[in-house]
């Protein structure tokens, strides 16, 4: 492994709160990372998102499991993918092995659970005929809880191949005997050159010199972006953008329109029913920015990009009106095409009472919220004012 100079903790998990469903929406019930984590109590989920404790062994299962790519590692998917580019025997299948698998391997990972769909498919992009995932029987391994994760990744990768008229059999899983993998990758530069090695020390010293002293501005004084402004920005989902890049470059891919049952996989399709009030909460809270609205003075339109949707269900869980329905039946070819789909189109009107826009025809002058609130307030006031009854 090329651990270079940094001798800190091995590949800690990095959290991008803005992409975490839990952080963005307190009603989210997403538990993907916690479910897959092999170490008890390593991940703690709360309304403030995910927290990783000292117990973490940095296996990377959560990085693979998080549909929104909120969790990352020092060696990201892009780095892992680029390692599949050059190898000694391009005609042979590309072999990715876990630490305990016997035999030759082009890429060795501590556990296959670190793989993402993008990394699994990337060797095909660079001309490999097939990808072989090698691992022994997981039952004896301390990380056996993560086996479900890499099986899911293989399932979706195969589904994606089928959706573009490629043979799903190009991704194979082989159960190998226990042993040590033999890396056949062309000798990677281990560590760094002398120059870089000393440069790294120099950088650290310079950094230490430049670090804020006592006179410098107190970091606590720096304004923290309020949550409400933070959620309005949508960060890019690094995991998905890597996958989409790989898909775009797959040789011989011809997208076929077909339904695919994607239960438990990080893809989904969205439908919005007639109860939609055009409040844009789904757009605001969507961690990956898959939903967008556009409106003019009289017209309102809500659409989404299926290739970005990860099926985290924040939109469904957040919607007060229960208008959003997330379905597991997906057309995977949309991931290749990257088109947008319309969810809602409607006439927009301005309420004469609250002066806020609402979805409704021009002959309505008040928004449904104002009408409901006024009615409720009066109903309750009547109840309080009722004479002679003991309304307990």
């Amino acid at each position: 492994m090329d651990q270079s100079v940094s001798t800190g903790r091995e590949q800690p998990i990095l959290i991008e709160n803005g992409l975490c469903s839990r952080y963005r929406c307190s009603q989210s019930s997403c538990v993907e990372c916690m479910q897959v984590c092999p170490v008890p109590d390593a991940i703690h989920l709360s309304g403030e998102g995910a927290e990783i404790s000292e117990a973490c062994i940095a296996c990377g299962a959560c990085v693979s499991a998080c549909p929104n790519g909120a969790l990352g590692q020092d060696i990201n998917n892009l780095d892992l993918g680029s390692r599949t580019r050059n190898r000694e025997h391009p005609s042979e299948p590309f072999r990715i092995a876990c630490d305990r698998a016997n035999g030759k391997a082009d890429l060795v990972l501590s556990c296959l659970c670190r793989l993402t769909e993008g990394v699994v498919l990337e060797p095909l992009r660079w001309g490999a005929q097939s990808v072989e995932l090698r691992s022994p029987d997981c039952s004896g391994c301390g990380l056996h809880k993560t086996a479900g994760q890499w099986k899911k990744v293989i399932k979706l990768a195969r589904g994606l191949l089928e959706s573009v008229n490629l043979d799903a059999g190009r991704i194979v899983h082989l159960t190998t005997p226990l042993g040590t993998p033999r890396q056949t990758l062309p000798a990677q530069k281990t560590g760094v050159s002398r120059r870089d090695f000393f440069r790294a020390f120099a950088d650290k010293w310079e950094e230490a010199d430049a670090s804020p002293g006592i006179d410098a501005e107190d970091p606590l004084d720096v304004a923290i972006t309020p949550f409400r402004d933070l959620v309005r920005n949508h960060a890019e989902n690094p995991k998905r953008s890597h996958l989409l890049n790989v898909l775009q470059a797959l040789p011989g891919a011809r997208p076929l329109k077909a339904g695919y049952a994607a239960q438990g996989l990080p893809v989904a399709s969205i439908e919005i029913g007639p109860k939609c009030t055009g409040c844009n909460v789904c757009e605001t809270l969507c961690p990956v920015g898959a939903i967008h609205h556009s409106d003019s003075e009289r017209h309102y339109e809500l659409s989404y990009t299926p290739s970005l949707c990860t099926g985290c269900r924040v939109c469904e869980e957040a919607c007060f009106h229960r208008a959003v329905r997330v379905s597991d039946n997906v057309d995977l070819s949309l991931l290749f095409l990257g088109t947008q789909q319309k969810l809602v189109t409607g006439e927009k009107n301005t309420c004469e009472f609250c002066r806020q826009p609402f979805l409704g025809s021009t002959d309505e002058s008040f928004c449904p919220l104002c009408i409901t609130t006024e009615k409720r307030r009066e109903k309750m006031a009547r109840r309080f004012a009722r004479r002679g009854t003991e309304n307990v």
Partner: protein
Amino acid sequence: MTEKNPVISPEIFERSLAKPGPKQYTLWIDLEFCIGCNACTMACKAENNTPLGVDYTRVIEIEEGEFRDTTKAPNMALTFVPMPCMHCGRPACQAACPVGAITKRKEDGIVLINKDKCIGCRYCAWACPYGAPQFNAEARVMEKCTLCVQRLEQGKVPACVETCVGKTRFFGELNELTSLIREKRSRAVSITVAGSDTGPSTKYTR
């Protein structure tokens, strides 16, 4: 007047004063003496500096009786019901908020909106059975009655209570208020706790 305020059974009176859980600051509004002057509304606006259209408390006028019935003498009544936030035991607004911006403070039971978190979606207004949360269109956040927390910290009572002309509003801890109601109104009063499952804390008597 007695037939309008029939004596209710002691058990019901006691039950209606039941305490919902730990410490809870709240209001007792005595409708008997409310004259609908809207001084509470104005005091609230002045204290909380709310823009046009945003009122943390409003006075609803309830008309009862029939005027046009020519066979009888007119028997009309106008009741004024001030409607602030009920600081519910199980706030519907809290349950509806998609970002967890609404909290019920453990130490005093006041339901507050965190304006840094609020995304202005108005879901709390949709959920509240009393129409309490108000949308501030300028700041694009929701606001509502805070029982004047800023005044409570200084040891004062809420602005509406201090201003009330008819002395119809009382502020205090729920236990203190219930004993105050017992002391002041004896049994000749009906006490309304809104019939909803949100467990409102504000007490109304008339």
